[in-house]
């Protein structure tokens, strides 16, 4: 026989730890139908026929939060065979409040008192037998963290499911019981007997959802209402509060019988830590230090190493195992590169084509000794005083630097160059070299004589796409370890408290700080970090605004614009961050006043869990769950988009024939056609040329691609990439181009993460649409108003800009009252 057991309990009572201990790796993680609340199910270890469902952490079976509604609906509609109610032994009173409601459902309940080790250590005593008698169900002692008593708890739940009934032992005061008896008779007598009491109490509480579900007639409701009003009058309180108060009075009486607290009134360890950590003076400095550590490790040091390894190593050329030989290779390759530059400078200056041919390693007739002798002869023919000008180009940003070499330097360079056999040093010769996946796959494809287009599809489309998905995973895992640690040790809840007042002002949660901070490194883990925000409205707002902050991949692009168009002005990069922060703050203020976000803000009330050391297995499990869910849910969209962009970039019509293109022919590609077709959209922003439009599209694959694409499109012809760009952009249109690409839709990986976290197509599109729209308007205003300074403005553009600014200011300052209702999002769930 199949048995369903529901695991119910307060938030932070150790429910997830118990669930993991009970089910091991036999888990299925998903969402409850129609909502973003996570649903976990798993098979009980050694019992294939027992399925355990982890309900959301709740304080009550009332209808006020999404979690409560989800848990309640599951219990009354699915009716599991048993409920395993886990309660925190160090906080009996509050935890038993839920228990008193669970036992009324008519489903067998087993209570597992968790943290018994802590209770015993404190010298407190819980008489579980007496507690069981008072509650009318079996009570077992466990420690989920230490793993003691867990099997007994599961066995007890199975036993209860098959053999027993739980009958609530507690009665309300006379007048309430009278009303409840009356309701049972009038409204719920058709239900099975054991379920009647729960529904009757809910009707007494005027629980609209339950009343709706039961479909009570108006007559019956009126009839019942007189009883409820009589009780309210006699007890001078509203029906719901009467029930709540009586439950607590009842719990107090149980606790008196079966709980002995050793030291009363003293501060607990958690309280003492809170006195320091959330102290009005120390809270922010401590927060800053914690954030610095998280950022430093997961973004700048370990995180960067991990991302570089994944992107440039595994999905690039290859990597040195454990870094052995990496330093040595870097030195020699730098030395060789410098020498090659000097030789190149003189060969070009002297017009020595024969030498150039001789040292061309790509040529079929290349011969190392011939190249060396050609170089030696060439070097001898150049006098020591001769000079040659050369322009160094930075690989990442394409920034240029003019240098002048002398003949003496050439002689040294030739000596160095020939000492390497006139060939670029191979990284495989230094240390332990592991080739990257694309290289391995490429040689494999070459071996089977694969067609060029298929090779391109596999390497530039699929492998690059998979790389884009997996490349971020190592860094994300590093970050997720920190988040899991901060969450499970209890500090995360305090962060929300410490930062709440500041972030509340612009519609974000105290916890929004972490996603935004991580977003400066990479938007993908930043968006994933928003998972820690419980409130749905705050989480959506954070997801939408996190990528406004410039991420690491946007830095080369910022440097390129600064160098090519602003002559390397130092203010450009800081202004990009400033723009990002302003965009987040303004969006927060504007959005929270819109209909989509209004209505369900949550006034800040949350339980702060006791501080404790998390277990390694729980931290790792949480890390893996999040990482895996990114790979699974975001992976498809990233892969697909990369392939589409690859196809449109490398295919096009040349001389009337549709074929695959080489890299230099990108101006014939489908993408260029699209760029031409949509360039007019960007004309009001000052950069309505197809090159910029195409670069913005390739930027969607990865933002650093903008630099590469502009390099190809503006390269060639007269002048360098930078000088060509400078002639195509004015200072104003250049900045508008920068602003648009910083603020518009992020790369596909980040869009995938947005889709994963929103878990809703409408919201994903809204987020992307908002980002693009916001970016467009900002760039528009920059260009139109900036044109005034350049004297190229047009009246229409200025008028529209001014209207936009006025509208913007109106949206910012229009009156708004933070609602004090808790949440009505629950209403949407049936």
């Amino acid at each position, binding site marked *: 026989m199949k048995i369903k057991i529901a695991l119910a309990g307060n938030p932070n009572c150790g429910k997830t730890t118990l669930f993991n201990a009970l089910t091991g790796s036999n888990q299925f993680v998903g969402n409850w139908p129609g909502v973003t609340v996570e649903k976990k199910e798993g098979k009980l270890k050694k019992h294939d026929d027992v399925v355990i469902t982890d309900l959301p952490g709740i*304080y009550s079976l*009332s209808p006020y939060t999404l979690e409560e509604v989800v848990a309640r609906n599951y219990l009354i509609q699915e009716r599991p065979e048993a409920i395993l109610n886990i309660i925190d032994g160090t906080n009996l*009173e509050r935890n038993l409040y839920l228990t008193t409601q669970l036992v009324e459902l008519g489903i067998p309940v087993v209570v597992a008192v968790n943290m018994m080790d802590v209770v015993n250590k404190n010298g407190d005593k819980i008489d579980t037998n007496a507690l069981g008698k008072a509650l009318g169900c079996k009570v077992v002692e466990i420690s989920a963290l230490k793993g003691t008593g867990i099997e007994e708890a599961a066995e007890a739940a199975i036993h209860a499911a098959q053999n027993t009934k739980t009958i609530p032992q507690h009665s309300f005061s006379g007048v309430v019981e009278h009303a409840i008896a009356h309701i049972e008779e009038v409204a719920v007598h058709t239900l099975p007997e054991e379920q009647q009491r729960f529904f009757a109490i809910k009707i007494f509480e005027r629980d609209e959802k339950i009343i709706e579900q039961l479909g009570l007639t108006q007559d019956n409701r009126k009839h019942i209402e007189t009883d409820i009003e009589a009780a309210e009058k006699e007890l001078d309180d509203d029906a719901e509060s009467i029930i709540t108060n009586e439950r607590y009075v009842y719990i107090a009486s149980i606790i008196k019988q079966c709980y002995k607290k050793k030291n009363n009134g003293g501060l607990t360890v958690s309280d003492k830590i809170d006195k320091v950590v959330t102290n009005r003076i120390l809270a922010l400095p401590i927060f800053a230090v914690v954030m610095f550590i998280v950022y430093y490790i997961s973004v700048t040091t370990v995180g960067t190493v991990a991302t570089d390894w994944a992107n440039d190593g595994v999905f690039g050329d290859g990597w040195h195992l454990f870094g052995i030989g990496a330093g040595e290779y870097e030195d020699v390759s730098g030395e060789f590169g410098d020498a090659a530059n000097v030789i190149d400078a003189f060969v070009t200056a002297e017009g020595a084509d024969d030498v150039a041919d001789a040292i061309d390693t790509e040529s079929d007739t290349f011969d190392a000794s011939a190249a060396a002798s050609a170089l030696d002869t060439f070097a001898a023919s150049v006098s020591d005083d001769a000079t040659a000008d050369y322009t160094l180009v930075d690989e990442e940003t394409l920034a240029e630097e003019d240098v002048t070499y002398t003949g003496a330097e050439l002689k040294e360079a030739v000596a160095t160059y020939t000492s390497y056999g006139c060939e670029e040093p191979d990284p495989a010769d230094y240390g332990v070299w592991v080739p990257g996946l694309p290289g391995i796959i490429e040689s494999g494809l070459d071996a089977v004589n694969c067609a060029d287009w298929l090779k391109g599809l596999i390497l530039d489309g699929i492998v690059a796409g998979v790389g884009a998905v997996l490349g971020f995973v190592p860094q994300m895992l590093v970050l997720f370890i920190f988040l899991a640690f901060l969450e499970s040790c209890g500090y995360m809840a305090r962060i929300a408290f410490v930062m709440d*007042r500041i972030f509340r002002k612009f519609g974000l949660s105290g916890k929004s700080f972490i996603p935004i901070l991580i977003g400066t490194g990479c938007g993908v883990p930043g968006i994933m970090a928003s998972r820690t925000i419980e409130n749905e409205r705050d989480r959506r707002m954070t997801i939408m605004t996190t990528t406004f902050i410039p991420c690491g991949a946007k830095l080369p692009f910022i440097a390129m614009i600064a160098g090519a168009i602003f002559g390397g002005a130092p203010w450009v990069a800081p202004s990009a961050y400033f723009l990002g922060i302003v965009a987040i703050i303004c969006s927060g203020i504007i959005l929270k006043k819109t209909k989509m976000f209004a209505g369900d803000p949550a006034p*800040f009330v949350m339980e*702060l869990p*006791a501080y404790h050391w998390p277990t390694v297995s729980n931290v790792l499990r949480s890390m893996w769950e999040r990482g895996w869910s990114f790979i699974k849910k975001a992976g498809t969209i990233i892969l697909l988009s990369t392939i589409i962009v690859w196809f449109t970039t490398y295919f096009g019509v040349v001389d009337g024939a549709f074929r695959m293109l080489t890299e230099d022919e990108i101006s014939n590609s489908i993408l260029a056609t699209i760029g031409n077709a949509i360039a007019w959209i960007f004309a009001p922003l000052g950069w309505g040329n197809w090159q910029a439009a195409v670069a913005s599209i390739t930027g969607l694959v990865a933002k650093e691609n903008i630099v590469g694409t502009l390099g190809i499109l503006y390269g060639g012809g007269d002048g360098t990439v930078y000088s060509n760009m400078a002639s195509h952009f004015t200072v104003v249109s250049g900045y508008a181009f920068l602003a648009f690409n910083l603020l518009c839709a992020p790369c596909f990986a980040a869009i995938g993460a947005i889709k994963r976290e929103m878990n809703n197509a409408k919201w994903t599109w809204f987020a992307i649409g908002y980002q693009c729209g916001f970016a467009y308007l900002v760039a528009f205003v920059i260009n139109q108003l900036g044109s005034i300074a350049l004297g190229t403005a047009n009246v229409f553009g200025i008028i529209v800009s001014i209207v936009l600014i006025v509208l913007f200011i109106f949206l910012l300052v229009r009156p708004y009252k933070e609602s*004090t*209702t808790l949440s009505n999002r629950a209403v949407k769930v049936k």
Partner: protein
Amino acid sequence: MPLSFATEGEENIIKQVGGKAEVRAHLENLGFVAGAAVKVITSMGGNIIVNIKDSRVAISREMAAKIMI
């Protein structure tokens, strides 16, 4: 007086919980019921952390103002 004005470290008894029905129900579910003892652990910019029924609850100034002690 409202809980938002309570002094740190002092234990008080809740007299009444006000506010809209749902807010009140939520506070009551968390243990803020008339007769319960409540102690302010720290306060920060108006938000406070209190000890109630052996657990710590962080609560905003607006909500604390609805709890009378």
